[in-house]
């Protein structure tokens, strides 16, 4: 098992390239290749097992640290993809309420170049309502829901050229 994880980690390190990484990829793809949970456990995300008072053995921990560094959340797209995938339920809750810590964290990586945070939240909520009301939404796996939300958020993400909402 350790060998497999080490090989997976090495493969990911070898192939992980920040700039080309997020282009054209879904949230799930980004998460699998950059998210810690994805690298350790494949497509599922057993954060409960991973993040607790105890940590895993040296090999995977080292790989985790390296990988987090290589797939740096300098890119708002990578940050958003991983964050939405891992915290989907809470992000969904806070978007619905229009307020909350998990929404605040998300808006901190959005662009406020042309719109205020409140305007952005309003737009996201309106678009998200359409996603929720889609007939197949309830039957979707969480990763698919996270993908849908990520695609909705993506056009609003900040970049190096745009003012992040964290500066407003």
């Amino acid at each position, binding site marked *: 098992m350790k060998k497999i994880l080490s090989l997976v980690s090495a493969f990911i390190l070898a192939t992980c390239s920040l700039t080309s990484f997020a282009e054209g990829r879904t949230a799930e793809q980004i998460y699998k290749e950059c998210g*810690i949970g994805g690298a350790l456990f494949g497509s599922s995300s057993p*954060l*409960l*097992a991973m*993040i*607790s*008072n*105890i*940590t*895993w*053995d*040296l090999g995977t*921990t*080292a790989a*985790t*640290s390296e990988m*987090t*560094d290589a797939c*740096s*959340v300098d890119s708002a797209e990578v*940050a958003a993809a991983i*964050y939405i995938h*891992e*915290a989907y*339920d*809470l992000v*969904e*809750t806070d*978007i*619905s*309420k*229009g*307020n*909350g*810590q*998990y929404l*605040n*964290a998300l*808006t*901190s*990586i959005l662009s406020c170049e042309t719109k205020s945070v409140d305007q952005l*939240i*309003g737009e996201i*909520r*309106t678009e*998200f*309502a359409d996603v*929720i*009301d889609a007939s197949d*939404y*309830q039957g979707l796996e969480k990763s698919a829901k996270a993908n849908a939300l990520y695609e909705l958020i993506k056009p609003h993400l900040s970049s190096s050229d745009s003012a992040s*909402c*964290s500066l407003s």
Partner: protein
Amino acid sequence: MFPASLFNILLIVFLVLFGSLASSNTSNSSLPSINDFASHDAVSWRRLIHLAPSSSSLPTPTVLSEGFYLSAGNLHHELAEQELQATISLFRDADNGAQAICRFPARFLWLRQHYQFDPKLTLKHCARFIEWSGFNSLDTISLIFVSGYMGNPASTFGHVLLKLNSNDGQYSNGFFDLAINFGARVPPGEAGHIYITKGLFGGYTASFTNEDYYRRDLVYTNSEQRDAVEYKLKLNEFQKQLLIAHLWELNNHVFQYYFLRQNCAYRIAELLELVLENDNIIRRELSYAPATLFHNMEQYAPAAIADVTLIPSPKRSIFARFQDLPKDHQQIFNQLVSADGDVKTSYQTLDMNEEQRSRFLDLLLDYNTYRLASVADEDKPTLLARRKVIVSERLRLPPSDSLSARVRGQFQSPIGGSRPSRINLSHTSNYGIEDRTSIAFSPFYYDALGQHGESGSEIIMMNTELSYADKGGTIRLDHIDFLKIQRVNTTTPAIEREKRFSWRLGLQGSNNKGCRACLDLDFSMGLGRAFELNKRMLVYGFVDALYDGQYKEFAVSPTVAAVYSYRQFGVKVDLRSRYLVTSGRTENQLDIELRYRIEQNLEAGVVFGHGENDRATIKLAYYF
């Protein structure tokens, strides 16, 4: 007489020899030495290289992995000196110095206060360190206490994290700030008894890890529903930089892990002792619980605490907001979340104005989120179906105007009570049968009457009692509570479907034969109910199933108890019966305890017992 020319030659030879000798002496005396430092700086250097204190019986380096130490000495005074010289030599190496300071930025920061280095050496070129640490955007550092969690034995006594708060963190609630954690490296699937044994006796190594803070929040607050207390630290620029630079140095290095002392709290306390230059964060405690770190900070380094914030768990906040609802809204809420609740209720028909409906739906949604994180997979489809409807309805209404989710639900900080370890002196009279004087020690003692914020609940570990008979003068091992946990759950008014059961378990040994150190082991598990009559009074009842070690048979034991607290006073009345299944024997016992808290860590009390064990006890307990 010597010819002048020969004299000149001898003089020249003498000067060359003497000169080189003097020169070499000068080179040797320019080697850095631990003796160059004032005593407190020598202590700081030893802390920086994690050398066990000189009074320790283990004068060896405590970082076990390769690459942290540059020299090979083992005795602590040699290693301190050799490590100092090796570090400075490396930093002054023309070819490797620049890279070396990136590997040991804390040593560089600290040593340049005392020694000269090439002015071109600067941490600004350490790109990976700068990026990882957020060195240039670090605002403050927080110490976070996470309350105990019964779902994991290692988490029962709480946990400690560090959080590196960035300037931008205020916009993201600090969710993308780095959280620093210290934990044991346990292989997956470890058996429980091995886990406990290795954890207690150093069978694991441990290291610091780091990730975005939101991942910790997802687990500790949203999944495990643990309260937290955040202590924002008041550190100057150098102290902050030294702390994060040292964390970088410790990245992926391992220590031996001991659950009772060299644990998460201890290792973080070492970091704080380093940057605060304070010897009192770790004192001579036999055990070091997470709460001990915070008690010591409050007592011995209060100036380093800028701010304290209570962070209630989502569950606590939800229950508090539920209590704020009008009674008719509570009934509607319970109907909607019950097993028979209609999945597709139209919330627009609720008799509420828009603001009330928004708050109501917010609470329903938060409760649904909380339930989703805690139920088994087979129960999720119904929750998800309801969730879709709630979310859809909520999105039609305007956003909430405040961060209501985490605001409600205040609680008493566990740090506000007594310290976790206890030593107890008592004298018991069995009314002429046998009077005994006892001393008991426990590394962790939170009992039902204790001031730890959870009235009625208990966590007691290794409470060991020795007693001395006034007549006869014999000393014996009287009693050991190996582990006693009592979890009292009160939810008043109750949210439908919430757990209302309290539970407890215990493993203890009692000396029933009057021998020196022979113990009969009892093991018990119980379920019960608890009711909070008002803020001061709690009543609860349990039914325990147990194995009675004295009679070597199984028993059933119902208990009813009441706990009353008012300021420094506390009273507990405990009535229990024990029915031994095989022999049919019944034992009844009534205990009444009165306790007075003299000061935060000192209590006096009396206990009257009647029944199987008639006795009167006076006691004095000191917490440390």
